[in-house]
Structures are given as C-alpha cells and as structure tokens.
C-alpha cells in the first residue's frame, strides 16, 4: 500500500485505539449469610487503554454505600483496609477477589437471594460503568485455583447458564456515556 493509505490506516487505528474502555468480567457476589449486614463484590477489570484507570467509588441501590476494600493477612491477623481508589495500570488486569481487593456493600436494604442481579455503578476515570453482579448460589469456597474448595466462579457460571469454564464472558452491555468509539 502507498504511504498515504498507510498513514490513513494508522491514524484510523490510532484513533480507534484511543479511549479503550475497561473490560469487565466475572462480576459476582457470593451469597451472603441471611441477616448479613454486609456483602462482598468481586470482578476482573482489564485496562486496555494507554491511560491509567482509576476507580474512585461505587454505588448500588441495594446498599447505603459501597466501599472499596483490601483484605490482607499480616502476621496471622486478617484485616481490611478501606481504599480511596483502585488503580489499574495501562494494559494491566486487576482482579477483585477473595483475600484481596473487593467491593464492600454496607447498610443493605434487604437480604440478597441467590440469582439476584445487583446493579452496581463504578465511578472511574474512564467514566461511570454500570455493571450487573449476579448473586451466587453459595457463599464461595476457597479461591478456586487448583485446590479442594468450591470455586465461586464455577458455581455462578453453572447456575447462571453461562458456558461452564468460561471465565471471561462479557457481562451484559454496559452504558458507556463517554465512549466515542465502538470499535471493540
């Protein structure tokens, strides 16, 4: 191809590459025990953009507030630390999962039931993201990577009708009001 075409194609690709929206997958809320005043939300976020993605907050109609937290075990003590923000570097993946980062739903208006589809809005540097978190059938077992515990992923995928073992299935279409491209 001639230079001009090459330049045009490059510009088009570059333009399409700008403002790559975060890719959300595996959003889930393990079923909390009845009467539980809090719940944890997990998900995986891929930031395909060249800009750092910063998640500054979250909200949901099912809870008075949603905080960002980090679980950790330090010197045999389990702690949680509220986070002001979560950062996903360009090209990086951030997994909110058991024993690590998670959304903490507080002041819940009603008990969650297995199969509920919980609407959550994430406030991010790439705009607001509306994500649906299905509530699982069980309180999740252990992390689910090569150990004997139940994996919350396999539980929810089985019961949600998703392809078994498919871990990267896209969630239902999200509203992305700031998106100017649709080249995904």
């Amino acid at each position, binding site marked *: 191809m001639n230079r001009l075409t090459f330049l045009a194609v490059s510009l088009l690709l570059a333009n399409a590459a700008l403002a790559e929206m975060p890719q959300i997958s595996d959003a889930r809320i393990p079923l909390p025990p009845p009467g539980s*005043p809090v719940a944890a939300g997990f998900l995986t976020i891929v930031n395909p953009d060249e800009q750092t993605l910063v998640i500054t907050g979250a909200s949901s109609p099912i809870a008075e507030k949603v905080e960002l*937290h980090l679980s950790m075990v330090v010197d045999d003590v389990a702690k949680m630390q509220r986070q002001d923000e979560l950062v996903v570097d360009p090209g990086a993946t951030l997994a909110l999962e058991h024993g690590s980062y998670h959304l903490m739903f*507080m002041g819940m208006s009603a008990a969650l039931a297995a199969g509920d589809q919980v609407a959550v809005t994430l406030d991010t540097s790439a705009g607001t993201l509306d994500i649906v978190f299905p509530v699982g059938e069980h309180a999740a077992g252990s992390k689910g990577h090569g150990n004997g515990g139940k994996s919350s992923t396999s539980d929810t995928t089985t019961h949600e009708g998703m392809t078994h073992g498919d871990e990267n299935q896209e969630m239902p279409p999200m509203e992305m009001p700031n998106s100017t491209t649709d080249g995904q």
Partner: protein
Amino acid sequence: MNELQKPSAGGLPKVLPVLAIAVLAASGGAWFATGGGGGGDDARGAQSSTEPAPVASSAEAGAAEASSMTDDELDALQATLERSQLLPVDFRTVPDFTLSDVDGNPLTASILDNRWSLAFFGYTHCPDVCPITLSVMKDVVAELETRDVDPMQVVFMTVDPVRDTAERMKEYVGFFSEDFVGITGELNDIHELTRSLGIVAAFTANDTDPDNYLVDHTASMLLVDPERRVRAKFTAPHEVATIVNDYLTIQAALN
C-alpha cells in the same frame, strides 16, 4: 435507614471506652502470644522452641495416650503437615468461660470436652474472610464425615459481640451448618478469653462511619483436643484439602 440492630447506647460512643480496653487487650494478647510472661512460646513449624523439660516427663499432663510427644516427635510430625503449626501440649489450655450460645443460653468450656474442635474467631460484618472460612469449614466437615476419624466440632466465636447478638449469630452460623457452635457474650468476657488464647481482636474505627467499624482478627483457627488443650494452629489461606489432610495426620498421631 439502617435497619440493622444497634447496641442500646449506639455504635462507637458506647464502644469507645471498651475500645481502649480492646486495644490494650490486643497489645496484651500480642505480647502474650509472642511469649511474654515466659513459657507461652509459639512453636513455629520445624523450628520449635526449646522447652524447659521434655513433654514426656510431665506425665501428669494427662498423657496416658500418644498425645505426649517429645520435641523430636513433634518436629517429625510437623514436617508431615501441609500448613498447620503444631503446638507443644502445654501451650495453652482453654480456660473456663461462661459465654452465650446462639439461643442466648449460657455456654461454658465444657462444650470442648471429649471431642476435637476447630475454633475460628471473626465477626458478621466481615464480608470476605469469615464467610469464606466458614464455607470452607462446612466442606471440611462434610469430607471428614466420609472418613473414619473423630468428627470435628466447628466453633465460631464472634470478637464483635456488641453487633453480633445471639440472634444474629444464629442466623449467620446456621446458614453454614446447624451443627456449628456459634458463641457470643459480653464484650469483656469474649476479649478476656481471646486474650488468654493469644487471639487478636482489634477494633479499627471507620473514619467515615462510626457504626461500621472494622475488626482485625486472628486468621488462624485453633485445634483444641478433648481435654481443652490447644494443639495446633491452622493458618491461612484456609483450603478444604489442606485442612482435611492435616486434621487426619494430627488425629492419627495424637489421638
């Protein structure tokens, strides 16, 4: 409006004087757990602390059975465990206590007699670690029931009894298993017990929301033998297969 059950005098203001005690207790617990006061040494895996006298010589420590082991035998057993930390037989004995079961009735240390128990300390405002651990324990018990071994009693004690009333504990613990023993009680009594066992329970004020405070708590579970002696710590991360295997190994050696 928050419809959660609130302590009668309201969240943090009531807890504040006790917070001070709890912080002191946690420090005291940490001090005690790291060997303060002498004689309460933690065994750390294969590098067991030197005991002043071999266990076998203190025959009066209830040892008619193989649960008295020399340091070498303990070390050898420790080497076969996947994640648990064995403790010397005289590490800690659970002291007498009077707390409350999930029906609000008095509960004493006699629940530990004549059976093996695995005790976990947490609270219901814990969205991640506690539900996962209890869920793991449910699977552990189910697996052990298929094996020819003494059944394991699971005890879940709240370190946050102000919010975790008997009613809340009943719902919460019952979700995992009706056989799990949920324990709550007076804050001071709970923390006196956790302190005596070297269990950490530390309140962390939530800067944006005084009622939604967080509680740091020991991640390990304690294995208690039929004579109320703490024999091992099952450390995090808690996984079904690991706990099952270690319990079977310890049972075979100590029971």
